[in-house]
């Protein structure tokens, strides 16, 4: 009867049956036309699976520019933050950011196109001033104005100034669900001394002629609470982050590029890792964009 040996087909096909079982299996097949035909069909089906052509990965794998971190707490918190940012709604992302307990400075980015240039104010401001706001769950005084959760609303850009050629440290993120779109965050280099100023470029390039570029939301993330010992002068991680300021700026021949500056506090220990995270939420620029984009760029204090 066929059912007597069908259960052995898989291991027989893989030549995994012990010798004695194999002998009994073959003996049964020799005397059972039904099982023999069933096993023939079985093998034809699996040969056809094995014959399916191998495929080649069509795009290059992109890895973080920075080396992996050894500090476990930082990794898990960082991954939790990224997971939170990937939630479909900006509010949820901000709430998730608070929930994972990562102290973060929220920076507003403004284009340097003149007085009429659009302003992206992640902290909710619409004035020309661009404050750095501390967004930390354990520090209500430093939270966004009025206790409101900052929302991310990238603004459209009339032109698509490319990354300045001198910006060698960059992170580019694409998503197959967003054809032709590219989120870029870049700095001139990866290593900066304490007290120095970091010029940051951040932009989403789109294939749409009406809105060729968007300014992403940008946040800066410093050492997690567990790394307080790395903060200067016995300060807490929150105090450390308060010392970082950000403002829009221009720089010689790159005045048309969306730039902001970040000043690293003097005394910051060498080896401190900072993350500059650019984010484009869902529904931007199109309501069909159901996947957020997150570009994480690392800079290291030397």
């Amino acid at each position, binding site marked *: 009867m066929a059912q007597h040996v*069908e*259960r052995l*087909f*898989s*291991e027989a*096909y*893989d030549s*995994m049956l012990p010798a004695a079982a194999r002998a009994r299996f073959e003996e049964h097949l020799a005397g059972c036309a039904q099982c023999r*035909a069933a096993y023939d*069909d*079985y093998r*034809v*089906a*699996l040969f*056809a*699976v*094995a*014959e*399916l*052509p*191998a*495929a*080649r*990965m*069509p*795009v290059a*794998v*992109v*890895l*973080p520019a920075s*080396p*992996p*971190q*050894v500090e*476990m707490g930082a*990794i898990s918190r960082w*991954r939790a933050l990224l997971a939170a940012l*990937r939630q*479909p709604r900006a509010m949820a992302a901000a709430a998730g950011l608070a929930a994972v307990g990562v102290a973060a400075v929220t920076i507003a980015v403004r284009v340097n196109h003149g007085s009429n240039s659009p302003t992206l104010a992640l902290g909710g401001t619409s004035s020309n001033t661009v404050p750095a706001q501390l967004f930390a769950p354990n520090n209500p005084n430093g939270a966004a104005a009025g206790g409101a959760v900052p929302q991310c609303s990238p603004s459209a850009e009339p032109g698509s100034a490319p990354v300045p050629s001198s910006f060698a440290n960059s992170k580019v993120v694409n*998503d*197959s*669900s967003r054809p032709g779109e590219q989120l870029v965050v870049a700095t001139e280099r990866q290593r900066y001394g304490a007290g120095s100023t970091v010029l940051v470029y951040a932009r989403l390039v789109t294939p749409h002629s009406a809105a060729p570029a968007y300014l992403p939301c940008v946040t800066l993330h410093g050492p997690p609470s567990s790394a307080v010992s790395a903060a200067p002068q016995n300060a807490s991680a929150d105090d450390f982050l308060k010392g970082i300021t950000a403002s829009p700026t221009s720089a010689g021949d790159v005045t048309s590029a969306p730039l902001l500056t970040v000043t690293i506090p003097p005394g910051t220990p060498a080896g401190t890792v900072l993350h500059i995270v650019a984010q484009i939420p869902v529904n931007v620029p199109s309501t*069909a964009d*159901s*996947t957020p984009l997150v570009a994480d760029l690392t800079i290291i204090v030397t």
Partner: protein
Amino acid sequence: MDDEALLERARRGDRDAFGQLVERHQDGLYTMALRMLGRPEDAADVVQETFLRAYVNLPRLQPASVRGWLFRVAVNAGHDIQRRSVRRPTSALEDSEGKILDLPDPALGPEATVEARDRARVVRDAILALPIEYREAVVLRDVNELSYEEMAVALRVPLGTVKSRLSRARAMLATALHGSTALFPASEGHA
């Protein structure tokens, strides 16, 4: 140099060693994800996500089988990508009426004969129609040729479960393909 030696070098900061691991496994992982999910863009996302997760976790990685572990990460990434793909009306594999879609397959080059294309399409759709746990088993073994031990790592199940799940998956697949004219042309007089 074997995978484990490359991983050890990568863990010590050798970026090129990690690059070699990517080069060595990216096509196998992509093929697995393509057979598992059916959509080339999702498959590419799985591979990207797999190596990103592997890279981030390098400092604490000590897998017995690098290949099995990479496939495990890829299987999980495939689950995540399927879960968060809200752009599809039902699933990656069916249209609104539940009919399996005839998806373009980038692995089928222009040189494939009509017969080979038909056969590949029928087999591919039969795999996609399997419940996910059986689909994983048959793809890992019969497409990617993982050992039972590597499958146990990839699927996080005991060896006995690997065998029983694979046996069941193959039986379901053979039943689905039984009598298919693409595999068994009438001219061959198949009974």
